[in-house]
């Protein structure tokens, strides 16, 4: 017979673990803040002489890169190794994909081989959502088409917060090929959720109708005048301009693009005195950014690269850590 006065106390419910990281649209500001906090401790690990902790020991992380990106792939590899995971990387070149195997097939094989996390880079928007429907483990989106690049978005937020101690209220200008940029979209989710004032600046051919953007991000400002946009900005983020855009007829010439939209020392002089310059890399120096700006004291471009490893560690840890 049960004793009187005993009440069963339910165990505190753990917050449901995030299964996938596909975009920042489903992150709350609180979750972003948590990730940034974890990132700070991961960055501390990277500063040690032995840059490794056992958090993911015994886990299999597969880097599935269907689009060339040596930099991002290495960043993810280092992040997984720093957490002691087993890492394998595959690229579409020379793989079964070139033989006509479907994405689903490739995923099933990786699943059968015991993958716990698939880090996926793909040229088609939405491809990670497709895999997430079928894969039993976690998907970490390393960039899909022009849709999302959540780890880049978070590393940008971390870099800004590291520099200014806050994100809220900062004036951020994103300039360049917004239309085709997954970085811009993820940054938009992250920055607006964290309370930054965002201005998008691009030629209309690299933006599309402004109403399309305002429907999703109603508080951003949109302009094609960089000189106005940059005035008083705290953060100037420029995007890589793919030279194919000129062939596609979206630009009359790189020369004119450079004249109207490049980040130059003269333009940076109009920004806030403590302003920083960011770029997701790789840069076309002399096209979207002038070399002297890229290496100036205002540039945090290299810091972004370092922070990228820490952010990816934080996310891998959230997805697969014990």
């Amino acid at each position, binding site marked *: 017979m049960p004793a009187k006065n005993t009440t069963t106390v339910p165990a505190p419910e753990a917050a449901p673990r995030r299964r996938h990281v596909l975009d920042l649209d489903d992150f709350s500001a609180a979750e972003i803040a948590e990730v940034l906090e974890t990132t700070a401790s991961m960055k501390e690990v990277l500063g040690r002489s032995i840059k490794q902790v056992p958090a993911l020991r015994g886990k299999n992380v597969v880097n599935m890169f269907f689009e060339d990106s040596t930099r991002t792939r290495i960043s993810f590899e280092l992040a997984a190794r720093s957490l002691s995971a087993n890492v394998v990387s595959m690229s579409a070149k020379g793989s079964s994909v070139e033989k006509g195997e479907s994405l689903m097939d490739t995923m099933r094989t990786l699943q059968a081989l015991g993958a716990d996390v698939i880090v996926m880079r*793909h040229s*088609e928007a939405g*491809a990670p959502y*497709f895999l997430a*429907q079928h894969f039993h483990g976690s998907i970490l989106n390393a960039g*899909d*088409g022009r849709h999302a690049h959540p780890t880049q978005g978070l590393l940008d937020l971390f870099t800004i917060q590291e520099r200014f101690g806050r994100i809220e209220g900062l004036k951020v200008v994103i300039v360049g090929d917004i239309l085709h940029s997954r970085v811009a979209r993820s940054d938009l989710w992250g920055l607006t959720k964290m309370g930054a004032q965002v201005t998008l600046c691009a030629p209309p051919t690299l933006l599309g109708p402004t109403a399309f953007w305002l*429907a999703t991000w109603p508080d951003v400002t949109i302009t094609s005048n960089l000189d106005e946009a940059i005035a008083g900005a705290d953060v100037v983020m420029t995007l890589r301009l793919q030279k194919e855009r000129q062939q596609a007829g979206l630009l009359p010439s790189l020369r004119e693009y450079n004249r109207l939209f490049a980040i130059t020392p003269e333009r940076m002089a109009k920004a806030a005195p403590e302003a920083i310059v960011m770029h997701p890399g790789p840069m076309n120096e002399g096209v979207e950014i002038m070399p002297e700006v890229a290496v100036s004291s205002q540039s945090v471009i290299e810091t972004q690269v370092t922070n990228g490893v820490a952010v990816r560690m934080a996310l891998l840890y959230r997805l697969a850590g014990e």
Partner: protein
Amino acid sequence: MRYLIKNGNIIDPARRIATVGNILIEDGKVSQLFDLADLNMTAEPTGEVEVINARGSIVAPGFIDLHTYLGEPGEEHRETIESATQAAARGGFTTLCAMPATQPAIDSAGTARYVREIARQRGAVRVDLIGAITQGRSGERLTEMAELAEAGCVAFSDAGHTVSDPAVMRNALSYAAMLNLPVMAHCEDTRLTKGWAMHEGTISTRLGLQGYPSSAEEVMIARDIALAELTGAHIHICHVSTAGGVALIRNAKERGIRVTAEVTPYHLTLSDRWVLGSLAQSTPPTGPAPAPEGKKRKRAKKSEPGLGLPSWFDPTLLPPYDSSTRVNPPLRSEEDVEALLEGLRDGTIDAIATNHMPQSMVEKDVEYRLAAPGISSLETALGLMLSLVHRAEIDLVDMVAKLTEGPASVLDRTPATLRPGAVADIVIFDTDQTWMVDPKDFASKGRNTPLAGQQLKGQVMMTMVGGEIAFRRGNFGVGTGMLRQASKLEGILDDADKD
């Protein structure tokens, strides 16, 4: 076999009839129609006759689909004539117009005769053929249109391909005018849609998918209308999907140009929000702000509890980027959906056509943009259209007209009707039967539908082709001896039941 369909709610738009009554079918034809409101109805048939009790159901002429992809010959893994026509029968269609997008294309009299022969042998419903405009549907050289017409083609279309060269299109229209047959145009300027994944708008911008702008459709509609005016030909605009397209067609009709148009059930009921799938939950609708009081027609609220009305269907049952939503032309914005409905109501749009495009898993289970466009839509067409009726967006009789009289008029035919002497192509459907879409139950081989798991209200109970039952749901209509509450009209019905 003789059949007596009793006590159905008969709708015959061609004769402007909507009444309760009995229909006797003999020798494949409608033999007599008894209007039960008319007290002089002693002529009950005698002898061997199967009585089908259609009480509570709608009895209408069989639906005609202007736009179906059969898959056969050449792509039998997607669909066969047998499976497509069975799907048609389940959807209430008694005639399909088969698009020539087969392998090989229906671009010669030989192929046309071959397909007709298979359809005659294995088809559950009638199959009419649409011949290609150009050889191989490549947009270059005209087909032998007169021979195609002799082989039974009822119209011409390059089905899914635009005739890009305006000079070729002009010649095609001139030539078709000589044969007095319509040219059905797929209107897409492919130079504006290169790499497209979905409708260009707010949602494509958010999802990072390459857009298919409305203007890519509209510039071609405008061109084809101008060419129809020039040649005096009959141009039929296939699956119009944009507000601008509707406006162009409306204007052309006002100017007396021979233009007709069709719209699909899914373009009238689903929007590009469906590509967001579960992400649509957190995204407010993008439609226009509600019109000021009194300006717009009154309509049922989106989901009135207790009325059992189907609400707008729920896109959040799908994952984001679900390739079942990829279709050409793409699902458009909510403003476009509104404009299409308006076009349907005011007569700008003549017909409902399914654009039934079966695809296999191999074609659909891939990255969104790489998935073959198309929705398997014969079996859900009526349910979608009835959702508009239930929401008081369109009238039931008008809906039947757009599925029967409208398509017949596009083909310059005697309208499908239930007039005594007419061929007994009949559909019986229940407007209130609620069912859940499960593609596994489809007769079509194409299980590609974004509607899986959605509740539809309204289902086909029986389809009759040429006086024979092509599809019957369960034991529909068997037995007539049910007790019913008496009312004035019911009293008349019960009298009629006594035999």
